[in-house]
């Protein structure tokens, strides 16, 4: 399982992927908002999105788990 974590502290502005979705490398999982910028969180690996730990409106801290991608 590949972990996708927040690289910065931000608000979850948009969740764009859903659990069960097939994702390719570089696909957006969600978009965070910080300092008036929309910051896309993408997956570095292809696979199936197994778990999503955030909802729109949540605040994430740097390092928080956002999603799990099943690469198998």
């Amino acid at each position, binding site marked *: 399982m590949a972990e996708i974590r927040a*690289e*910065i502290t931000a608000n979850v502005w948009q969740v764009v992927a859903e659990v069960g979705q097939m994702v390719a490398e570089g696909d957006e999982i969600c978009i965070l908002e*910080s300092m008036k910028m929309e910051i896309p969180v993408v997956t570095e690996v292809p696979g199936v999105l197994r778990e999503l730990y955030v909802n729109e409106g949540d605040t994430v801290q740097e390092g928080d788990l956002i999603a799990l991608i099943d690469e198998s």
Partner: protein
Amino acid sequence: MTKPISHEGGDVHDWGPLVGDLASRKERALEMGGESLVERQHSLGKLTVRERLDLLLDPGTWVEYGLLADHMDAGLGDRFLAADGAVTGIGEIDGRPVAIAAYDFTVMAGSMGAVGENKISRMRAHAVRQRIPFVWLLDSAGARIQSTSGSTFAGAGALFREQVAMSGVVPMVAAMLGHCAAGTAYIPALADFVPMVKGTSSMALGGRHLVKAAVGEDVTEEEMGGSAVHTKISGVADLEVGDDKECLDVVRSYLSFFPSSNLDRPPVRESKDPIDRRVEELYALVPTAPRRAYDMRKVVHAIVDEGDVLWMKPEWAKNLLTGLARIGGHPVGIVANQPMVLGGALDVNAADKAARFVWLCDAFNIPLVFLHDVPGFIVGSAVEKQGIIRHGAKMLFAVSEATVPKISVVLRKSYGAGYFVMNGLAYEADYIVAWPTAEIAVMGPDGAVNIIHRKTLEAIEDDDERAAKRLELAEQIRANIDPYIAAGHAQLDDVIDPADTRAAIARGLRITADKEVDRPWRKHGVLPV
């Protein structure tokens, strides 16, 4: 050990005992601290000092100075300390000589003996005479108490001043390969490049036992001064690596960007990557939607030769990227904003990181390339208390002072002082170009709208309505921020297609290669710190 007496049997050419004795002395010195301490070194996940030199240097180029040194410390009596715990000499890296001072942790924990330090001092002088880089391999507990007892310490400390005298004259690398304290923590402080091995290296002004005694804090070397602390929090170190071998590889890689001394240009490495390669990936990497962030590292990798970048301090002040790369075979120093972190805004650490990197490149004739996507400096009482004014001024000072060729590419926003410190036109930018998305302005629309339309917005009661109106008015302001206005005034040298970015930087570097700047003489400026 006593020298054999020749001439016993009346043989006037009695070389055998002398040569044999010499060989055994050398063999003994090459055993370092002995088998069990060598095993201990390995069990700690570290290589021995001599194994490190084998990996660092080109084969067959090592010339050792002072192999047969020993301690001369009264407190240690008859003990034999191979090479007095410091292996020194000259070797080659990529065919170019470097001076080496490598501490041997198997000999009294690599502590600094008087003889060892004399050897290293000799190497420093040699490096300056020969104009060659200096590399320290640090794996040392620090000062050896038995070497400087009592107030003879009054004469100590020349090593740091000598290091300062070398700063900016020859490249200095301090590789952290063990737990180092005090003296051996100041050496990296004064060096140019400090890679640290994760888990087995650390640096701190006071070792843990001293810290416990002095301030009562119980802390491990790793917690106090390990690679996580110095590459992510304090910014003292430049890079964290996984093991000794990786560390030595990165030292070789780092030096490949630098000339042997400040009198030379950086070495050119021929590249098969075409100089006029169109970088069409940038269309997919960089959004035209101004609020949408992207990873600037990917932009840099796409532009430079073979996508190869040696990032400096990548885990600290991540809102500002600094790295060494090549374009058309020529080393360049990249300074770029990172929109993904703090929106690319500058804070105290980012300003320090940039200033330091600019000074480094300028010292050694490495041209600078600035990639702008910056909303300015962070404002507010928190950063004011941190001294953002003087830290920001430090970055401005460094960029202003630099006389190497300076190329600027404004990708998207570049507001206010952010535009200045990223080498705006007035900062002696030798070639400054902008993308069609460039927004150069004193302030961004989102900031300006709150000032220009403050009263209008305050009059709107409903929060959502006010937010919508704010966005609408901001977009109206944005329409007046246009790179073609700057280009119209010839305040930009050109507006370019993003795919032309690599070629644009390459031609900027080519036409500015022989830049010379004259300034009124002064001893040095009064630097903001």
